[in-house]
């Protein structure tokens, strides 16, 4: 069902000369743009706005072993050039994701499905990944060791490199598809975490998850979010994300997905040049339901305007000869 109010909007499907396709691990992506986990639910809602086959891939909402009701409200706060969220991993649990959500996405025959997996203990993650490994529709797993919004919701694995490595090793033993580890920026040294995950067998990395923040309701003299803290996202975090992608992609030999405040095609170009092989779009989907296809379109137009024949040419292009000296 197409929402009738989209008719007056551009369809963002202009023809471009550039080849936008990217080989990412075992996945042949028609373009390097995918929605970020938790910013697209399981795809149904946005499918009312455009054909999901146009996406490079889809990363569905974090899936846990059991159903989770998430945090109390308020869960959202607007911040300068961004927002805080503390959803708390609300999801129907892996069995219903397999029974109800993944079959829906199978109608999109050109849409690789990446399932984001979260939990509280290594055994939870292992069980979820085992179950997902029995489903053909799953092209890759994104390991969420960076959700800031639940106690023991994964971030403890993402801020201790030994715990992260143990987690990755355990998951790699059961996963039958590539494992992408989603990194938290809430660490002293993200490169150290990245290297630990690579050494433990991660197939790829995605970064960054949200930065932990807080807003005070000054009338009530209390934190605005019911959870107290939340994850900061949106354009405000983009320079941090670009820096981290640049540093991590320089330090590891596995591909990196860039995430953090991408609103326009030019932002995607920036992440690719910083060394990302693909990008995820998060908060922008909340502002503009067409964000992903618009960004694909803008990325194509940018490449054409700059004589780029294949988007692969952009990956790491900012590194040049000089590089950046890491102190």
């Amino acid at each position, binding site marked *: 069902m197409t929402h009738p*109010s989209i008719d007056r909007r551009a369809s963002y499907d202009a023809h471009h000369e550039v080849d936008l396709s990217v080989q990412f691990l075992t996945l042949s992506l028609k373009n390097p743009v995918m929605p970020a986990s938790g910013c697209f639910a399981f795809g149904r809602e946005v499918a009312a706005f455009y054909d999901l086959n146009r996406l490079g891939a889809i990363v569905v909402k974090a899936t846990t072993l059991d159903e989770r009701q998430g945090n109390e409200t308020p869960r959202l706060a*607007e911040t300068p050039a961004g927002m805080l969220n503390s959803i708390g991993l609300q999801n129907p649990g892996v069995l219903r994701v397999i029974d109800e959500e993944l079959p829906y996405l199978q109608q999109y025959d050109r849409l690789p499905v990446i399932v984001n997996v979260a939990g509280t203990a290594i055994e939870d993650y292992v069980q979820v990944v085992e179950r997902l490994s029995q489903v053909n529709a799953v092209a890759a797993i994104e390991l969420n060791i960076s959700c800031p919004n639940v106690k023991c919701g994964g971030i403890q694995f993402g801020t201790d490199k030994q715990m992260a490595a143990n987690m990755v090793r355990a998951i790699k033993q059961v996963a039958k598809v590539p494992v992408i580890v989603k990194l938290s920026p809430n660490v002293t040294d993200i490169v150290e975490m990245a290297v630990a995950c690579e050494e433990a067998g991660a197939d790829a990395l995605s970064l960054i998850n949200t930065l932990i923040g807080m807003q005070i309701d000054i009338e009530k003299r209390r934190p605005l979010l019911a959870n107290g803290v939340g994850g900061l996202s949106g354009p405000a975090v983009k320079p941090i994300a670009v820096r981290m992608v640049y540093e991590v992609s320089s330090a590891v030999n596995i591909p990196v997905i860039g995430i953090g405040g991408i609103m326009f095609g030019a932002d995607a170009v920036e992440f690719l040049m910083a060394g990302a092989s693909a990008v995820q779009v998060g908060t922008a989907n909340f502002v503009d339901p067409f964000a992903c296809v618009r960004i694909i379109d803008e990325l194509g137009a940018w490449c054409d305007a700059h004589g780029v024949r294949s988007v692969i040419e952009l990956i790491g292009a900012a590194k040049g000869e000089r590089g950046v000296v890491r102190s």
Partner: protein
Amino acid sequence: MALVQIISQQSIGADIFELTLEAPVDLRVFPYEPGQFLHIRVTDSFDFLLRRPLSLCKVDLIKNHLSVVYRVQGQGTRRLAAKRAGEILDVLGPLGHGYPKHKDDRAALLIGGGIGVPPLVELARQLRQDAQSVHTVVGFQTKAQAILVSELETYGPVTVVTNDGSLGNHGLVTDVLTQAFCADFDRYYACGPTPMLQAVQRRLSEWQLPGYLSLEERMGCGIGICVGCVHKISRNGRIAQLKTCKEGPVFDAQEVVFT
């Protein structure tokens, strides 16, 4: 989603504005419902990133215009209030589930509080069109914030209540909702602040009057993907956190769980 022109912007109360827009859809074709909302960007830049959800208030099917009414509550809505006729707004909607129709009903009770009153105007119009009688009870903090009373009076009697007694009855809307007063209605339709909705739900369930509540939660995307605006809803024997933007904002009153 569409870029639409502002037809007019009018101050109708203390810091309260009525914004009339070209409809983002053809309202004669699009099956909109009273209680649905428009999701409006207040600026193109990043300083106020998220859209603002504003309920449909009035609909002009001939001109294909509609209006929303909002109170300036922060810098974002202040930015919106600075916009003038002829300027362009980025509007998504109408979104969500509004008030369902009950064609066999004969008498409807509408209950509004403060900035929750606007959606009752289009609701009252449609109920009258379906030949139902409409009685509206509206509550405001004070006279300066009383809005849309004369509009509602075109569809039936209106009982006004203010917290400070500066207009109409002194007190709360629930003071009006006695068993005797409620006896003649088939159903109620409420929109307002959460404490009011909670009090109305409690009172009218005592009188066994079925009804609907339009809930307000801090909203992000408006289309059901961020899962920020949930409210506890008791349905099919279990309590679930449903999205007010997608499954709501209007819910069957007996399903709504207040904590």
